[in-house]
């Protein structure tokens, strides 16, 4: 069977495209990188791909707020193209700045307008950028390449990754719709995380969410920085691992795309 086609989208200031492409290729996809300027010139360039990944970085410096400018660009240029990609059976992933950008595009809340959206990602409670390893627990999600209950280590690196919602009712709605996909957890996988296990003060310790179909996932941490066993600072204590946990995250995504092709 042929390798699924994956596209890593970057913009001015995106900087994680290379390791994201590497992760997808290792996972079994034919992965390419494209600047969104080219997509804005010709939106049909997205059509051949079954996986779209918005890579991390600092699009436009995050000068007006994380993901703000790239998100506005995409809203105008792509219209409902991302939605149609999902309906066609495509997958979408946004990592870190890519997650912040997807939030701005409105893909997670298709029934809302930019002005009425319920979710936001904003400044870490610590007030500054932070880079460290954390653990994630997979919640009861519809995302087809995540396994509920699983716990895995992953590096995070961001200044504006605090997940918040407008009010508690919105949180309950998202939980009921199984859109809350990933949460920060203590390394044991049990109990409530406090800082720094929850590194940014996210409400409900949420680190990743999906759209209502589960086929578009956004998360703040970076699985693509944990492809090799030696990436993990505790590698010496973890016993023999043939690869980092992030490699599996991407490989499963590619498997889903392949199975559904």
């Amino acid at each position, binding site marked *: 069977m042929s390798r699924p086609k994956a596209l890593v989208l970057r913009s001015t200031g995106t900087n994680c495209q290379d390791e994201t492409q590497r992760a997808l290729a290792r996972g079994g996809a034919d992965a390419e990188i494209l600047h969104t300027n080219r997509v804005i010139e010709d939106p049909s360039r997205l059509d051949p791909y079954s996986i779209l990944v918005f890579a991390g970085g600092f699009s436009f410096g995050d000068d007006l*707020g994380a993901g703000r400018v790239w998100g506005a660009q995409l809203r105008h240029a792509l219209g409902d193209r991302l939605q149609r990609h999902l309906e066609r059976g495509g997958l979408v992933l946004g990592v870190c700045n890519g997650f912040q950008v997807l939030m701005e595009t409105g893909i997670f809340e298709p029934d809302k307008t930019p002005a009425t959206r319920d979710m936001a990602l904003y400044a870490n409670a610590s*007030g500054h*950028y932070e880079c460290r390893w954390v653990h994630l627990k997979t919640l009861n999600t519809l995302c087809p390449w995540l396994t509920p209950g699983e716990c895995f280590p992953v590096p995070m690196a961001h200044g504006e990754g605090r997940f918040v919602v407008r009010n508690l009712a919105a949180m309950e709605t998202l939980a009921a719709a199984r859109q809350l996909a990933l949460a920060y957890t203590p390394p044991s996988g049990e109990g409530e995380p406090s800082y720094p296990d929850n590194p940014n003060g996210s409400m409900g310790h949420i680190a990743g969410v999906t759209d209502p179909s589960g086929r578009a996932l956004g998360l703040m941490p970076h699985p693509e*920085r944990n492809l090799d066993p030696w990436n993990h600072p505790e590698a010496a204590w973890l016993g023999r691992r043939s690869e980092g946990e992030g490699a599996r995250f991407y490989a499963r995504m590619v498997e889903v795309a392949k199975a559904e092709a």
Partner: protein
Amino acid sequence: MGPQTGAAAPWRIEIFRKPEFDDPEGTHALAQIRALEKQHGQALGIEAVRLGRGFLLPGELDVDQVRRIIAELLADPVVDEAHTFEPGQAPVRERQRVLVARKPGVMDPVAQTLERSLAQLGLIPKDGPSLVQTFRAWELAGSATPAQLRALGQELFANEVIEDLHVGDESLHYGLPPERPRIGRVEVALRHLDDAGLLELSTSGQLYLNLAEMHCVRDHYQAQGREPSACELETIAQTWSEHCQHKTFRGNIDFEGEHIENLLKSTIAAATHEINHPMCVSVFHDNAGIIEFDPEVQGGMDVAFKVETHNHPSAIDPYGGAGTGIGGVIRDILGVGRGALPIANTDAFFVGPQDLPQERVPKGSLHPRRILQGVVAGVRDYGNRMGIPTVSGGVWFDERYVANPLVYAGTVGLIPRRFATKEVHAGDVILVVGGRTGRDGIHGATFSSVELDEDSEMVSAAAVQIGDPITEKKVAEALIQARDLDLFRAVTDCGAGGLSSAIGEMAEGHGAVVHLERVPLKYPGLTPDEIWISEAQERMVLAVDPAKLAECVAVFEAEDVEATALGTFNATGRLVLEYHGEVVGDMDLEFLHGGTPKPLRKATWTPPKIADPGAPALENPSQTLLDMLAQPGIASKEWIVRQYDHNVQGAAVIGPMSGVHHNAPSDGTVLHPLPESKRALALGSAANARYGRLDPEAMALAVIDEAMRNVVATYGDPGRTALLDNFSWGNCDKPENLGALVLAARGCYTAAKAFGTPFISGKDSLNNEYRVGDQTLSIPPTLYVSSISIIPSVNAVVTMAAKKANNLILLVGLTRPELGGSELHELLGLWGGKVPKPDLRYAKATFEKLHSVMKFKQVASCHDLSEGGLAVALAEMCLAGDLGAEIDLSVIDHDNFPEGYDANTTLLYSESPSRFLIEVEVGKKFHLQSKMSGIAATPIGRFLPREKGIKIKDHLGQPHVSVSLDQVRDAFTASH
């Protein structure tokens, strides 16, 4: 402010967090205010602080457009609320307000981003003049007086060199910087000046050339029978500045009767030349040094490494100075050969004590705490935005840096062998790419070559540069693409001296014609000489074959980078500058690059005559160990490290922090940058100015030994290691300072030769002095050495964290009574004694044998002994591994210690170089010791479960130190 260009009053928008969401910036500011209140012993009565991000938008916009801009770009619908004021309207003040806005003409990346976005949405014309501005509005609830608020604003919110502070005043400047009449060629009357006149011109024109140099310039123009133009004089001053020419290092020196011709050539470069290491690809002559990384991959892959100093700009504006320091050294890497891809940044800071009482901060200087916080934020915001991991570095504290902090920034890059060289051809187009040119950073090169004084903040405001990392990121993306398509023949970055030095350097041996009116400007009104010497950031110059010009420009434009042809390289040997058709400069390149006079400077060195304070017996050895761990130089730097992205690009193997809880300091850091190679790269660095004050030559040896230990400890190959030197020194017109420089440079030669490790690049920053009144404060001689080493296999790297209870602890190397300049002396307030000095042959054998046993995976962990010696190293390993340990000093072989040296204190805290602690499984000890034959590798104890704590028996086998792991952790992190 002067008269404004007639801009209509702007819309004013302030974005605050909604009250139901917390405002981390406000919270952080309040915490800082509380800290200040405590420090000053005075409550200001401030109860709450919140920050509004302010924007001024063109008054011509209609209300719907403004609403749309707010919704789409400025305010988050969930967490933010926008306060909008129509043109001419000002906020009604319910709380005390402090406004901070950039001075006119100071670079504002946020405004630039907003402006581009507005243009894209079709709300303002593209390429129009800059009419978007930003400001910060701090709102404070409470009863502070305006005078208190102003003082607070100066201390916390604004840097008045680049920003205006408004207290109780809502009028914000709006508009472009005042335009000046267009000026063409300006001549400077110089041929008939006497010595006094020449010196006066040098100072008032901020040329900072000395009398001999001014004579040289005068003679040159007398011979030409004409006066120099302003552009020419500026070009000469930039090119001949200490910053660009290294006049001291390359000049003639009389060292106590001995004649030294070109110190650099006869010491550091001589070592490299004589070692003639096959891994060296390009050394000293380009923007960075290049060594071989893996010849088997992609037709041969090399690495480039450069470390820069950015001291004076960081003293005045720590945030901007450190950011542009990083930005500049990244461009050095982009501009080495035909361009290397940056893969790692390093940084090192030398600052005053963080708890220094305000009254000891010299007039005109910022408090050391503010400097450190500023430089950390500057490196963070620039490095993180570039997507380059900041992996290694350090912080050193000494009151001697209080007025003149040192900031070092380094970058490592990957470069395929075929791009390691560059060549300009006559006929090539001069293409400038990147950011636009403004009045920022005028006279940076000359400014950084003179001493600072209490007025530096004011007169050198123009020397401050503000970086825009996103522009640099775009340049980097496009440059590497253009390189891979072979679209240019040579490249260099615009650093100090701007276009004048970049084009002047590339034209050397050729010639060039430059049309200055073609340079894209941020705003109108720059004179041709301002255009020529501006140090506006994020610009690079390429030499492009005219046949490839269109394709090359297209690559840059596809990344939204401006690329503009300024002229042509030719073979005339002259550098000709034109401005709207008028020749504003016409210089002989040979005179420009070869005309610097070489003065003879005197150098002497008198070793300080101080009684040896020895190593006193400790009253409470357990407490001393904890106190040592809390010393600023040793204590955890995690609060800094965590703000840097250290694993972007996915190549991290050993990061800056190691251990089960990622809370202990790594020796070297390790990257695995090429997935198809099994090789990895180790980076290390070292400095010790306390050693330097006592014995500059021993400092050089010890610092190089430590930089070697850093990488060897991680499994770096000592036979494939290269070094970089960075000297920051006081005024070298003073013979004692120059003498110390000579000795340190000689030490560099000796150590490099002994280890077979070439220097591949370096940079010096002399004249690090600060004048206040008639007093001069000088920094101590500070040599910062960086090391880069090839790790043969990424699978075999070794970290410093203790791995398993019951494993043996071996002390490798010999301990001598060397505590001169040690951390223990610093703690105890002692000064003097013998500076640690490596036995170079023994050291080299130690590194090689340790490397060979690592190859067979005999070493479970390895930590080098540096500041704080054996005791601190052991505690750090235990902290990292979350294990206890028991060691016995009585088993350590050593020569008799002299009178005044307590055996326990000496064994625990001597800083003798070339030593390591290694962890070995019990069954592997014999094999390891036999492999290490000839090198002391003494089992001194073993690691234990955590709850046993750290126990040290004294030289008689009696209990000496007993501390728990919690005590160790708390001491190490107390300053957090």
